[in-house]
């Protein structure tokens, strides 16, 4: 019997060999994201749109508010790639200027949401007890309020402009982030690795910065990816119903509203900003899904 089985040579040192370099959660996430072709394509589309929004108005011969009544409502041509509007303003410049403003509003609003939400959620989860109870009751009241209505009311009492929209969006937008961060930290707080860190004598602030915050970054990034398009939508929506940005400033909502007024005769005024906003929303949606799958495989849907 013994002859039938030959002992295979096992190199003991091989057992402990680490085949791959040690990756952080983000490097791993990036590796997984790279495999998702749609997400990568969306990322590049967004970068392209961002670059165009930044550079196109700079390198154009026209300005976004320069009017020229000799060339109103021109259809797209070599001189005016997207045509001109009712004041003869160049729509190529106005569209990218509008994209720039819409993106700016969305990013700043998302950043403010994120800051307030993360601080509120983290404080609530870490202090716990009565403070947490009070903070959560407050949030439970706020989540019942339809956001858009409050945003509209705020828009009405503040002077029209970029910052008004940012403030109005942020006042209502942080609640969701706060809830997610709190839930995540509550979950992490009781896990073994935090207990281990505590046993080893790690200070509370070090646990927060080294263990809790890095582990919630996934949730935060994913949520931010969904906040940005919703901010872009809300801004465009407000401008469309006439209480957002005002002329001659351009935002995607203002441009779409303008285009809608003359849709019957000059569809090109509406089409270009509409395509840009749809592209932005689609790309953020796909990228957000991709990031969720990549950073948090448990949430894969």
């Amino acid at each position, binding site marked *: 019997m013994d002859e039938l089985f030959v002992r295979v040579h096992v190199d003991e040192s091989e057992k402990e060999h680490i085949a791959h370099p040690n990756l952080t959660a983000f490097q791993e996430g990036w590796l997984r994201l790279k495999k998702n072709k749609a997400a990568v394509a969306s990322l590049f589309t967004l970068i392209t749109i961002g670059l165009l929004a930044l550079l196109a108005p700079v390198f154009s011969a026209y300005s976004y508010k320069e009017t020229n009544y000799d060339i109103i409502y021109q259809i797209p041509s070599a001189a005016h790639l997207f045509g001109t509007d009712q004041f003869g303003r160049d729509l190529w410049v106005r569209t990218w200027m509008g994209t720039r403003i819409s993106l700016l509003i969305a990013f700043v609003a998302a950043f403010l949401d994120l800051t307030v939400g993360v601080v509120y959620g983290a404080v609530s989860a870490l202090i716990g007890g009565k403070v947490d109870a009070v903070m959560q009751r407050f949030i439970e009241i706020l989540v*019942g309020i*339809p956001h858009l209505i409050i945003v509209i*009311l705020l828009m*009405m009492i503040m002077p029209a402009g970029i910052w008004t929209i940012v403030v109005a969006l942020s006042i209502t937008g942080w609640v969701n982030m706060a809830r997610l961060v709190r839930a995540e930290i509550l979950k992490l707080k009781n896990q073994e690795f935090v207990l281990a860190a505590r046993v080893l004598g790690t200070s509370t602030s070090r646990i927060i910065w080294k263990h809790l915050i890095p582990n919630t970054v996934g949730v935060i990034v994913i949520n931010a990816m969904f906040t940005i*398009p919703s901010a872009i939508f809300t801004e465009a929506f407000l401008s*469309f119903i006439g209480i957002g940005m005002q002329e001659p400033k351009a935002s995607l909502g203002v441009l779409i509203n303008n285009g*809608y007024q003359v849709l019957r005769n000059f569809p090109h005024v509406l089409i270009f900003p509409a395509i840009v*906003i749809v592209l932005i929303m689609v790309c953020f949606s*796909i990228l957000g899904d991709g990031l969720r799958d990549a950073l948090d495989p448990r949430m894969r849907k």
Partner: protein
Amino acid sequence: MIKYICKRLIYLVLTLWVIVTATFFLMKKLPGSPFDAERFNMMSAQQQHVILEQYGLNESLPKQYVKYMGNILHGDFGTSFTYTGQKVSTVIGGRIGPSALIGIQAVLIGLALGLVLGIIAAWKHNSGIDYFTMIVAVLGVSVPNFVAAALLQYYVALKWGILPVGFWTDWRCSVLPSVALSFSATAMVARFIRTEMLEVLEQDYIITAKAKGLSPMKVLMRHAVRNSIIPVVTILGPIVVNLLTGSLAVENIYTIPGIGSLFVDSIKANDYSTIMGITIFYSAFYIFVVLIVDIAYSLIDPRIRLAAGKEA
């Protein structure tokens, strides 16, 4: 269960109170006045006094607030500034019909289309129809409803002349706005059902059903669909929110005499009392829908009821 509902009802009242209070004080800070400034200043002090008194605007803020809260408890939302002499509740009441019709039709279209697309997509996973459904799902939530509504109006009504451009005369007028509103609902339902059903299809009881020789159709209808349909109740809340916001733009585009267009018009006319009335109406509606959805879901799925009971 009763404890849970009571707790929710207390929150409901608190939330409504916060909304009413916030709206009241925000409205009082509003720049501009519902009265035409030029003509108002031409009036004598006595005339101004009479008008202010008629609308209850001559008292101190706290007094006005207490009075307003008292009136609301009696179902009185004050008098509209635009529709002179009409009660806000009457104005809103007259506008509910069209909005409700469009909203209900949109939900029904969204549910029907979304269910069919989602079920087929999951059943034929990774097939052409699955990819089509995913594209619909992404586009449905990405294309802003006012862009969709504007394009539908342009092509279907203006270019092809199949349906009316707007107005509110017969049922044909309600088709386009309902379809425009239903896009986001279709997308959300299709996506949700697809995910849910892909999970259900991997469950042991589906394998059991297949193993005991049930026809694929029976497995689908009796086991898969039934078990994946119930959770759709949970996304009714977000769907209703989307419809509310959507209606503001869509009703304006199709000139429908509904609450959404009334709201936008009141905002432009500084009609405080109507804005406040609609804000409260929308919020109350939304909160009730969420509450009913939560209760319905806990009744349908006992696991949720237990979790809620533990929390309470």
